[in-house]
């Protein structure tokens, strides 16, 4: 096997050195009755050429990967500058371990410190951790954290939270003694509502996504006000981080915990992962946070360096009393996001956001003009995603659009809500040239004529 340096002869010699005659003897401490007495039933080894050909052939069956795409709903097509993939393939980054030995891990540690800082700036928060698995698990961890902070056991979740995020939160809290309730939803405005009947002195937190699953920007400030009046925490989830280049930050609106899916920050779609969970909060809650944190430290000569810190929150020290069981997180993906935010920078993040909003506004306007089509939440501000009501079954319409016009037109909402048969979610980013948008509009028109 070409990845194993020692030749069979060298191994034989090493075996003799340790007093053994055959490789089987290495496993003499395993009882004979559980030793596998046959070869694993797996395909025979492939050469590099054969392997590449095989994977190329498999990948060719992913027909959606080659089409103009208007799917969003938690995963977004954004342009990723070339230098990102080049830099993350440096051995020093991608083949390093978790930075437990700071003297030989300052590269990774400084990246995380820069990442934490940028996440704070983008979300308007005071502290951010080194990353979580993704947006959905970050929401779940935020819910658990809110219970720790408030010692209250009810969490109210907006029905306009990404349905898969809600499902993940349900799994996480299933045995945590936390009750998940629902906020109201204004079907006219497409926005979350909070009434006094739902929020009370038992409420630990309110969870709201903005822009929400239907594309509408929530009125976070008034939600924060109502939430805080009940002594609860406002957890804001962001699935589309590009929006933070334009929208008022959740922190500025009064959020106590901001969690986000960081995939928009230069991470490939990659069929759903690896992505990147962002987790930020107020300084006073730092010791209740899940996950790793990097902080500034100095050596004996007073030179600045970075270390993993506040580890007493974590599982390897606190075991079952830890703030989370998380250990491995998404280090390399956090690096992608850090390089992305650095390369696009202050101006680029704003320009991407502006282009997304402008192009989505154009697409929404054009689609709304089509006979039989409407935008159910047309009056509510949005970013780059919007709900469309088609005159026909949306799943079938989108299927035909893919087959006959070679465009992935969006997400049929019936995937998550069977009552929304004619609704679909369309998303437009800076990667969609006007010609693609026009082709989408023409396709929808042709298929409903």
């Amino acid at each position, binding site marked *: 096997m070409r990845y194993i340096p020692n030749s069979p002869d060298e191994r034989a010699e090493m075996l003799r050195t340790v007093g053994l005659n055959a490789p089987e003897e290495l496993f003499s401490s395993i009882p004979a009755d559980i030793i596998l007495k046959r070869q694993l039933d797996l395909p025979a080894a492939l050469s590099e050429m054969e392997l590449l050909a095989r994977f190329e052939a498999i990948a060719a069956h992913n027909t959606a990967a080659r089409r103009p795409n208007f799917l969003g709903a938690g995963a977004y097509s954004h342009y990723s500058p070339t230098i990102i993939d080049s830099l993350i393939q440096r051995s020093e980054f991608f083949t390093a371990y978790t930075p437990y030995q700071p003297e030989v891990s300052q590269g990774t540690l400084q990246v995380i410190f820069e990442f934490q800082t940028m996440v704070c700036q983008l979300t308007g928060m005071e502290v951010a951790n080194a990353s979580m698995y993704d947006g959905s*698990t970050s929401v779940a961890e935020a819910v658990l954290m809110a219970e720790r902070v408030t010692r209250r056991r009810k969490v109210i979740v907006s029905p306009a939270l990404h349905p898969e995020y809600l499902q993940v939160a349900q799994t996480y809290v299933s045995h945590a003694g936390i009750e998940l309730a629902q906020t109201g939803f204004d079907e006219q405005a497409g926005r979350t509502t909070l009434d006094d009947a739902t929020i009370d002195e038992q409420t630990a937190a309110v969870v709201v996504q903005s822009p929400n699953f239907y594309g509408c920007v929530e009125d976070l400030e008034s939600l924060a006000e109502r939430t805080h009046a009940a002594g609860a925490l406002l957890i804001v989830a962001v699935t589309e981080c590009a929006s933070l280049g334009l929208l008022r930050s959740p922190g500025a609106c009064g959020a106590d915990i901001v969690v986000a899916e960081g995939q928009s920050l230069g991470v490939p779609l990659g069929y759903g992962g690896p992505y990147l969970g962002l987790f930020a909060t107020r300084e006073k809650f730092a010791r209740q946070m899940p996950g790793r944190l990097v902080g500034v430290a100095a050596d004996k000569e007073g030179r600045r360096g970075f270390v993993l810190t506040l580890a007493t929150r974590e599982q390897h020290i606190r075991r079952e009393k830890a703030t989370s069981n998380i250990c491995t997180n998404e280090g390399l993906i956090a690096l992608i996001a850090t390089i992305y935010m650095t390369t696009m920078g202050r101006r680029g993040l704003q320009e991407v956001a502006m282009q997304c909003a402008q192009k989505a506004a154009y697409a929404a306007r054009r689609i709304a003009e089509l006979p039989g089509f409407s935008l159910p939440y047309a009056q509510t501000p949005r970013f780059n995603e919007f709900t469309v009501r088609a005159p026909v079954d949306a799943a079938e319409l989108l299927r035909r659009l893919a087959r006959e016009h070679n465009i992935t037109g969006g997400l049929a909402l019936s995937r998550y809500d069977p009552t929304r048969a004619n609704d679909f979610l369309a998303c437009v980013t800076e990667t969609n040239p006007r010609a693609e948008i026009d082709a989408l509009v023409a396709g929808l028109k042709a298929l409903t004529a």
Partner: protein
Amino acid sequence: MTINESLVFERSMPGRQGYRLPALDVDETLLDELLPADLRRDDDLEGMPELSEPDVVRHFTRISTWNYNIDLGMYPLGSCTMKYNSRLNERVARIGGFGNLHPLASDEDAQGALQVIYELQHHLSEITGLPGISLQPAAGAHGEMTGVMLIRAFLDARDGVGEGDAPRRHLMLIPDSAHGTNPASAHLSGFTVKTIRSTPEGQTDLEHLREICATGDVAGLMLTNPNTVGLFERDIREICRIVHEAGGLVYMDGANMNALVGVARPGDMGVDVIHLNLHKTFSTPHGGGGPGSGPCCCTTELEPFLPVPRVVRDGEGFKFDFNFPRSIGRVKAFYGNFGMFTRALSYILTHGPDGLREATEAAVLNARYIAHALTSDYDKPFDAPPMHEVVFTDKRQSRKGVHTLDIAKRLIDYGFHPMTIYFPLIVQGAMLIEPTESVGRQEIQQFIDAMRAIAREAQDTPDLVINAPHTTRIGRLDEAAAARKPVLRWKPEEKATAA
């Protein structure tokens, strides 16, 4: 590498730009019509960096040189399995048909991705001897959480649930040598953690296990095998039998599967559920702390409870099946860290069954060789021959005031990454060494020579070891001070005061 490089924020200069987008090609909407002012940012993203492209490349390249990495040399972290990360796997993962695929594409349009998931599931089942599988968990601890939730769901279905959602059997047994993630994961499912002692020989204490199992409160056992002192649990069959007879289930932490692939299968040992670490055993890169991937494999009894959706056969093709009413639900949006699936499948197909077995043999042999060579210089607390990793202690060196931490730091001066230190907790001054199959004999010899040299230094010039490392850009950092007054982000004011 002693080059200095400031924080990216300190490098930033107003007006520098590292990107260019195509000009906006649609009719513009007035900003206020697009979004009212009170919903827009008013901070102009102050503080975010402004740099040219060469600035960015230089910044990240310079700081990268301060990292040790596998490609540079042996990375003998015990229980972490730092093996070679092949470039071929990276290339496979970057094939456009995978990288550009949206997770909500229809099954019909994502047949290639579904095939990757299906095939990897199939192969991992064969490797573990456990037929049920979900690739959804994003890391080892996430896989543990999933596995324990399967146990909880199974027991609730079998025994019913107590008042206030209390489990009928509330004890999750965990050896004192376990990874900290085990108890943390058990806690999430509402179990009470009960510690099982290890014997002086480094094996699970069967008497203690029997004693606790006799209480009738045992929901399960979480066991690492080979355990964290690098020994195979000889009595694994008996351990599983005791727990099963007491009505509990056995969870195996698969962190150490690199000692077993192709040699023995957890399913054949009586284990009910295991998680694998694709970023350990199956060589997907650690990336400085992730991404990982922690597939969960289980028996047919536990299969109905696996997370949804699951990939199943659909005629000639594949599809997602959401219809498993007894499922614990989702543990992650979408389907898991798919990018790690392509890499792990590539690893398996590159090795084939004989290559996988060869890797296991080479990994165990390398550890055995180190164990053999260092016994003369370091205290080895357990006599039994180790599997893929071996634990030593600082017992002999500490007489001269040289401790495990010092030995680890001194190893850096010899060009190696330190081993895992002070873990497992049951071994005082533990040094856990896992060479993996990816190092050749010369390099292992260099490592042995370095460890012997350090042992001599500990005798003759202990200060040299105590003050190590001497060759790095910075010395040991004051971690206690860092935790007392945590500075967790850069702030613009600090720049002003520094200037």
